[in-house]
């Protein structure tokens, strides 16, 4: 039995400890907001937070994830998340949307660690997250806007 704590809830899973967290989230816990894109830490679609840090759930085994604090797009909360998601909507960032859970998880991590990232820092932090629809220009702007808004103390 593997004990997984996801979005504050603890689950007992009878699964192969070598199974990537991604598939446990999607197939066993029904948390399908976290996406499969490459299975090889190349695209970022599967990004979740593990103990507050962005992690590729497609290469994080249950063995490693067990006992840690895991957060997915479904459990995202707090002022940074609110600002990021709000700014994503205001700027109409999404196209197909498939990469966007991962983008948002990465963006929230970035702003939680660095409230005023410069353009180069945004590019650095986000370049592991592919968007085949190339929504990058808007992602950049949306992160900038969310940072400004958080700095100004405005509600999301």
């Amino acid at each position, binding site marked *: 039995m593997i004990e997984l704590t996801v979005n504050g809830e603890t689950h007992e899973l009878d699964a192969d400890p070598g199974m990537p967290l991604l598939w446990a989230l999607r197939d066993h816990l029904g948390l399908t907001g976290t996406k499969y894109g490459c299975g090889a830490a190349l695209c970022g679609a599967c990004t979740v937070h593990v103990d507050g840090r962005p992690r590729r759930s497609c290469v994080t085994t249950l063995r490693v994830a067990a006992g840690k604090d895991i957060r997915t797009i479904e459990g995202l909360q707090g002022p940074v998340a609110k600002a990021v998601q709000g700014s994503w909507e205001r700027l109409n960032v999404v196209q197909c949307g498939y990469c966007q*859970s991962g983008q948002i998880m990465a963006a929230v991590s970035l702003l939680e660690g660095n409230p005023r990232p410069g353009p180069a820092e945004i590019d650095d932090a986000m370049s592991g997250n592919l968007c085949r629809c190339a929504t990058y220009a808007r992602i*950049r702007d949306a992160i900038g806007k969310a940072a400004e808004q958080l700095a100004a103390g405005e509600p999301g």
Partner: protein
Amino acid sequence: MNNDEISSGLSRRTFIKTGLGAGAGLSLGVWLPALAQMGGPGKAGAAGATGALEPNAFVRIGPDGVVQVVAKHLEMGQGSWTGLATLVAEELDADWDQVEVIGAPADAARYNNLFWGPVQGTGGSTAMANSHKQMREAGAAARAMLLAAAAERWGVEVGDITIDRGTVTGPGAGQRAGFGDLAEAAAAQPVPDLVFLKDRKDFRLIGQMLPRKDNPGKVNGTALYTQDIRLPDMLTAVVLHSPRFGGRLSGFDAADAKKVSGVVDVFEIPSGVAVVARDTWSAMSGRDALRAEWDDSDAFTGTAGELMARYRDMADQPGTVVRADGDVAAALAAADTVLAADYEFPFLAHATMEPMNCVVRVDAEGCEIFNGAQLQTGDQMAVAQALGIEPGQVRINMLYAGGSFGRRANPHSDYVLEALHIAKHVGRPVPVKLVWTREDDMRAGYYRPMYFHRLRGAVGPDGKPSVWQHRIVGQSILAGTAFAEALIKDGVDSTSVEGASDLPYGIPNLGVDLHSPVVPVPVQWWRAVGSTHTAFSTETFIDELAVAAGKDPVEYRLGLLGDHPRHARVLQLAAEKGGWGAPAPEGQFRGIALHESFNTRVAQVVDVSLDGDGAWRVHRVVVAVDCGMAINPDNIRAQVEGGMGFGLSAALGEAITFDGGRVVEGNYDGYPVLRMNQMPRVEVHIVKNDAPPTGVGEPATPVIAPAVAIALHRATGQRLRRLPLKLG
């Protein structure tokens, strides 16, 4: 009211009620005479003395006041659901927040693409172009019925009632109602025989920036893709495909695979060996343990380089004539200097972020499919044939697609049929989800075909091009598909030559010819289709001629665009906004290109710098676009940004290659796609235009590569003619 805003064919238009949304509430459909004229399979049964009645249903208003727009097109990122809803809501005078969008079922009789005859599907940048009028009429008819119901209830004239943002107001005190209050009474009103569409000056939603309808679900993770479908008792399948195209399974050993916990069954299907399991990870692990042998006697075992050499040889011989203006041979013979250029374009993968997948359940009624469905009618027919049932028994739920770029409109229904074969073997009524891994998706084919182009031309005494000969060699996408009859004319696949055969430049002696070699690598349309290669060769070659003539390339083109004022205007706008003629920033070089595809004209000015080791970087792209009436300018900008980025990605590093027939690239490491640190700043300028709207999903894609190549020529003197663009 402008004349062209009154719906055409009024006398023949008939509106009828449909069974959609039975119960209280307003539901109506619009029958379009255009559909009846096209004929096709949906027409036969309903045809009578009065002509075919084919009910379409696009809008439902419930007693709760929610306006549901039924979207006949797939939302694969291009904003079609938001666009369709905008058109309905505009004519209905609905409040944007009360509008919801749902996907239409598969039913070509009601939901066909009006540009494609009796076929339901999305593609060719047609979502707005084919349906803008249809959607507006549907909204206008609903509005008229709400007005009639209010007039009856309040005993007033329709002309004294107004609708504003979902609120219906009469002249008397307290005469206010929401759509929900009136829905039931409106449903009892006769459907109007004719509707009037709004004058442009009264638009409140068209032309505005509106929040996309798919925003909330896509930022909070609840938007459902095929990958996310979970049904009771559902099994998950992966397939081991032949490593070579055309390879046949000669044997397999499933013993170890079956030992993997969670694996339910392993069996042969036409496209390989299926491993069916209780969850995705078990299915993948089972496949890892599977051993199979393949008979490659009929398989493709070559390399891309060998194929390209063959194409190059073919280009020495004339191909099928596509266009022959003037006397090309004589003009070439008479020229002092003939410029010649050979171009090479690789196979390209769509590499959508959501790999191909499909859920199928074979049941007593037929079959139910969950798919990011892009070509419903083709998929229905293919599945019906495989099951020996009627197409109408194939029910398709259209999910969001995590990108497509053409891939999900597979004219062979490849992955849909694969899922079907597995579900059929598993037996009813267990649903099966077929999942392709990234490697499956990249290696199972259906690529943008590889192409070779040869261009020859000369500058005449007046400085203008005197002759232009364009030879194209590459596989036909349409050969062997249901589209062949309509789109292959006199041996010419129109998608192989589009953008070349309709070159907008006035050149007296102009020839285009085509070779369509048959090669066992599966190919398909890829965002912007033929223009993905023709824009590159034609635009860089016209630049070569301009340089040879000693002319500014913008002036040079303008001198040849006399018959194409919209092209000229878009080029001038890009040149002006992009600072053409002014120096680029220190260390940067400017290029410009122009191309029309899907009736939309796009020009781009790029600023490029050299990054060392043959690498280059685009800093800024200024785009001018003429796509007719701008339904949603913000979405046009988004599509131009993304479409340009898609083309830039290919120009930077995309290519599918083969080693002894095996696809070398398997994931995003070997097949790099654009990342954020490679994305330039993009400025989009939309030409103000009242012409009917044309597509925006594709036309920005083909223009970036030639613009970059031209800038790189200015930077280095090198003419790059092979994609992806690598400096020597």
